[in-house]
């Protein structure tokens, strides 16, 4: 029997509300078992039917289009800029250059101030002042009524450059002039270390030491939707729609740079078509659109072209690492030292110099290495700046470790997996304090490798490999047993007093139950393709006993929910999802109190069962969330309790989370041409408790493709004069479905103790794991031809050259 909520007066409204709820299914008692289900994505119908709203779909009356004049030079002084012809173009309202931006409060932000470390951080303005430092560096903007017209007009801006020699090789750049920023007298950005005083002892103990120069070349994020911004300044307030991962950061910085009070700035990330880190940024384009809108009193829109995206959206990786790994003859690894030279491009963007340092925290991989030491040197070059791209420092770290492990196994003539197992952090050691100073939350590395080997019969593979070689087919297998550090938080470690990022790393949530029992859940996370609306709805639904279909997850708008910390570093679920779970629990607690009050029971005796808050032991005495909401909004709440059914939470965890897993890749190498074909890819990942296994698979698929892309196909390349050679999708070769096998995925579930959901992140895991597996597989395939090591990208020519060289060596020896 359920209590009829609503008294005399409110009865009618409540009745209407509950009828409405019945029609929409909001009042339905739903069993609380949505978490763990492979529920279809709530986002997909609008995406699949083309009804989603991206920045470019939003139009405001009177909008002016913004087009850029960008530098064709890699390094040059600006001698003069003549904008007169462009100003004359029909429909052009204004042309601005660097010196016009005098009222900006400061240059573009760089948010990393590591205690005790000096970081060279020359001013970086949205439009170049006097000097351009990479191809694509913006020099002027043209604003006008027509999207095409402003591009035509931009071509008529005449810029005279005094071209200077470009700096493109980061190692040469460290040696001195020319300098990217002349006034610094150096190209060095910073030196940072995660030191270990046992390093020397570790190498002293070692009986074998391998050294490799591991190159992790530059890649692009290449989101399918390039960036875009629409800024509307009117009546003293600014609204900005931006294709960004970090609307909350963008609001803060826009307010600061434009000298506006923060409450007057609203930033909305509408549908965002992929980010991959490339939209974790405070861009000059956003600042300019807002500044121009204020200046001209009209909305201003800029939609990035693919060519612009390839040239100026920040890029990733680009590290040369000198790796030394020491071990005893029995395979016990005693020390690992990595010295990274990171090519950061021409400027520091939001997090540029932190990225190579991030990898240091997992430089131990899944191994109990007693001494792990990472040194980072950042270098300016005349290239597009680098910053976070999916994995941000951890793919590089995993690549170094996992490639070195294979190299070490070869050196020791030891089985690849035996060497790994010998050094695994044992499953009973968690939480495990590592030589890097971080504490791995949970893990079971043998279990994931065992699971992988259920899919991959290694002995059978080796037999097949031998047979195939006799037929001239070079098949290889490569493994990567990885962990990574994600769920970025806690502030104590990542923030100003720890690693030095100038922010707090909590996440916010607001859960609002409406009159009808429908729920709106606000999160400070800002998804851009991952599926938060589904996973977060599943979490909230279970806490409140409703169906996920009546839980709307709202995100990416600084004007609606609480202050948020956005989406990056695989943190959304582990920080934002948990925050939302806790918030929903607060709402459920209040619901319990209301139900107890209504049913004259003790709150402790109210349990959520089959979608009803019911009295323990008498399941027929209970209320659905809709009924509770009815009572809450009729102020039929216990004495002293506020009416309404809504809560806000801010939460941050005590530690990071450390997903892990074991991947295997099988490739065939055409020894005559060097072409590599991935024939099998098997991934066993553990991201703790699965909220939605289908979303996990989607993330792993994309992540693995991202890394296969880097290993075999993708590469941003600048020639010696600093010209970008890979500016289109013809030259920047993203892999397509035709190049890839069907992935075989499996999981283990080792809950994280760091949050109540037991979850870890999975958005970057595939990318972090896979490049080493592919590289190791290719090397394994061509070892009989005399090749023992190669760096990515393993393009056909590179593999062919390595084989030819090895064969030449052989012939040289035998001759």
């Amino acid at each position, binding site marked *: 029997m359920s209590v009829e909520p609503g008294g005399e007066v409110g009865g009618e409204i409540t009745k209407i509300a509950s009828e409405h709820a019945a029609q929409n299914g909001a009042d339905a008692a739903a069993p609380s078992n949505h978490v763990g289900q492979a529920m279809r994505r709530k986002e997909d119908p609008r995406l699949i039917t083309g009804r989603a709203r991206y920045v470019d779909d939003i139009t405001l009356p009177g909008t002016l289009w913004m087009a850029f004049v960008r530098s064709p030079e890699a390094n040059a002084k600006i001698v003069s800029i003549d904008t007169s012809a462009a100003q004359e173009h029909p429909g052009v309202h204004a042309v601005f250059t660097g010196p016009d931006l005098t009222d900006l409060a400061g240059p573009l932000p760089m948010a990393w101030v590591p205690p005790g470390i000096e970081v060279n951080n020359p001013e970086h303005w949205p439009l170049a002042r006097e000097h351009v430092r990479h191809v694509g560096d913006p020099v002027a903007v043209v604003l006008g009524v027509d999207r095409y017209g402003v591009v035509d007009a931009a071509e008529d801006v005449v810029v005279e450059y005094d071209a200077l020699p470009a700096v493109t090789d980061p190692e040469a750049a460290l040696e001195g002039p020319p300098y990217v920023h002349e006034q610094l007298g150096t190209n060095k950005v910073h030196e940072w270390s995660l030191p270990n005083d046992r390093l020397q002892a570790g190498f002293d103990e070692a009986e074998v030491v391998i050294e490799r120069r591991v190159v992790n070349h530059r890649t692009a994020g290449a989101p399918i939707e390039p960036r875009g911004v629409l800024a509307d300044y009117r009546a003293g307030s600014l609204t900005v729609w931006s294709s960004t991962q970090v609307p909350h950061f963008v609001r803060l910085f826009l307010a600061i740079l434009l000298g506006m009070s923060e409450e007057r700035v609203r930033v909305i990330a509408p549908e965002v078509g992929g980010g991959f880190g490339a939209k974790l940024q405070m861009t000059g384009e956003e600042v300019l659109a807002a500044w121009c809108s204020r200046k001209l009193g009209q909305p201003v829109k800029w939609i990035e072209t693919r060519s612009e995206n390839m040239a100026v959206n920040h890029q990733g990786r680009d590290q040369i690492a000198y790796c030394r790994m020491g071990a005893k003859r029995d395979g016990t690894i005693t020390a690992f030292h990595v010295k990274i030279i990171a090519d950061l491009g021409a400027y520091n963007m939001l997090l540029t110099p932190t990225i190579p340092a991030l990898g240091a925290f997992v430089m131990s991989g899944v191994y109990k290495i007693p001494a792990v030491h990472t040194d980072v040197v950042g270098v300016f070059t005349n290239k597009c700046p680098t910053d976070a791209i999916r994995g941000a420092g951890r793919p590089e770290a995993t690549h170094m470790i996992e490639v070195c492990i294979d190299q070490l196994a070869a050196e020791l003539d030891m089985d690849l997996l035996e060497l790994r197992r010998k050094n695994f952090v044992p499953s009973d050691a968690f939480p495990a304090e590592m030589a890097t100073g971080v504490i791995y939350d949970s893990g079971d590395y043998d279990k994931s490798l065992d699971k992988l080997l259920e899919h991959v019969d290694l002995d059978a593979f080796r037999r097949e490999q031998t047979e195939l070689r006799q037929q001239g087919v070079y098949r290889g297998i490569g493994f990567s047993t990885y962990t990574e550090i994600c769920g970025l938080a806690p502030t104590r470690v990542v923030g100003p007093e720890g690693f030095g990022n100038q922010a707090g790393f909590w996440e916010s949530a607001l859960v609002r139950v409406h009159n009808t029992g429908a729920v709106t859940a606000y999160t400070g996370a800002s998804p851009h393709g991952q599926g938060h609306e589904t996973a977060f709805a599943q979490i909230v639904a279970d806490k409140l006993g409703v169906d996920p279909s009546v839980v709307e997850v709202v995100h990416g708008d600084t004007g609606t929910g609480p202050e948020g910390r956005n989406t990056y570093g695989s943190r959304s679920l582990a920080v934002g999802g948990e925050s939302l779970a806790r918030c929903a629990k607060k709402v459920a607690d209040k619901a319990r109190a209301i139900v107890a009050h209504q049913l004259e029971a003790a709150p402790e005796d109210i349990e959520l069962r089959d979608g009803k808050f019911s009295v323990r032991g008498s399941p027929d005495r209970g209320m659905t969330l809709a009924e509770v909401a009815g009572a809450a909004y009729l102020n039929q709440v216990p004495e002293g309790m506020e009416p309404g059914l809504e809560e806000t939470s801010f939460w941050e965890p005590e530690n990071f989370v450390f997903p892990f897993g074991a991947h295997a890749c099988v490739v065939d190498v055409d020894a005559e041409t060097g072409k590599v074909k991935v024939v099998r890819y098997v991934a066993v990942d553990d991201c703790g408790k699965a909220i939605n296994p289908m979303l996990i698979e989607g993330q792993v698929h994309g992540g693995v493709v991202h890394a296969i892309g880097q290993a075999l196909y993708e590469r941003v390349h600048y020639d010696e004069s600093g010209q970008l050679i890979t500016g289109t999708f013809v030259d920047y070769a993203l*892999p397509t479905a035709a190049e890839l096998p069907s992935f075989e995925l499996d999981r283990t579930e080792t809950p994280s103790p760091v949050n109540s959901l037991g979850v870890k992140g999975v958005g970057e895991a595939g990318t972090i794991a896979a490049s080493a597996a592919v590289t190791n597989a290719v090397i394994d395939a061509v070892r009989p031809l005399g090749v023992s090591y190669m760096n990515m990208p393993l393009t*056909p020519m590179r593999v062919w050259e390595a084989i030819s060289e090895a064969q030449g060596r052989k012939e040289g020896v035998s001759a």
Partner: protein
Amino acid sequence: MIPAEFDYLAPDSLQEAIQALADGGEDAKLLAGGHSLLPLMKLRLATPALLVDLRKVPGLHGIERENGSWRIGAMTTHSELEHSEQLGVVARAAGTIADPQVRNRGTIGGSLAHGDPASDLPAVMLITEGSVTLQGPGGQRVVAANELFQDYMETAIEPTEVLTEVRFPVLEGWGFGYQKFNRRSEDWAMVAVCAVIQQTGDICEDVRVGLTHMGSVPLRATAVEEALRGQSLNAENIAKAAQEAAQGTSPPADLNASEEYKRHLARVLSRRALEEAAGLS
């Protein structure tokens, strides 16, 4: 990514199209499938003032067999060629062009008129010893494939001429092979080799080998042909002949393929294409 301003015309007849080209002068360009021209315009590497679209012009479409020859309308798409297996090596090569979207729009006429040495069909036209028919203000002329391609993206077609059809002999009884090497299946050829062989028993009566992207124009590997003609078609002879594939070529190098690598590829792919054509693989 945003082209410069241009005018657009879609005439109903060939005469009107030719007239429009003549009136438009240097700045007028024909538009077929647009899959070579539009990308260039978007990058502003081409800035024609007028596009004359051939899509409404009648009679430019279709595949017919006529007196031992194939006659293919200029506006016939790669996809139609791909699905006309009877065209042998032409169908095979067309099926390797880019992806289905490109093949559904791109045309044989556009591909030959564009004269990109990395495109698949030009070298194939060389080994089928075909020809193109050109219609201009002064009438019609026929140009043999080996005279069509003059330099990098330069053909014998005058700015006021329309390529209306392609003809090539039916190679009845010839075996063929096509080996295209690229990084991704949708990419242009780093190098491609096409081969046709006419054989009696295991003797090579005649052989033609074409090279894609080994120079500024598509090439015939005549040294390979000479080395194999009259020989017995075994693996050893084919391998030996294929060694000649790079002779006299000056392949354009890029980031992913040096000249040396391309020469190597030409030899490997020639061997494979010949083995395929001879039925040995």
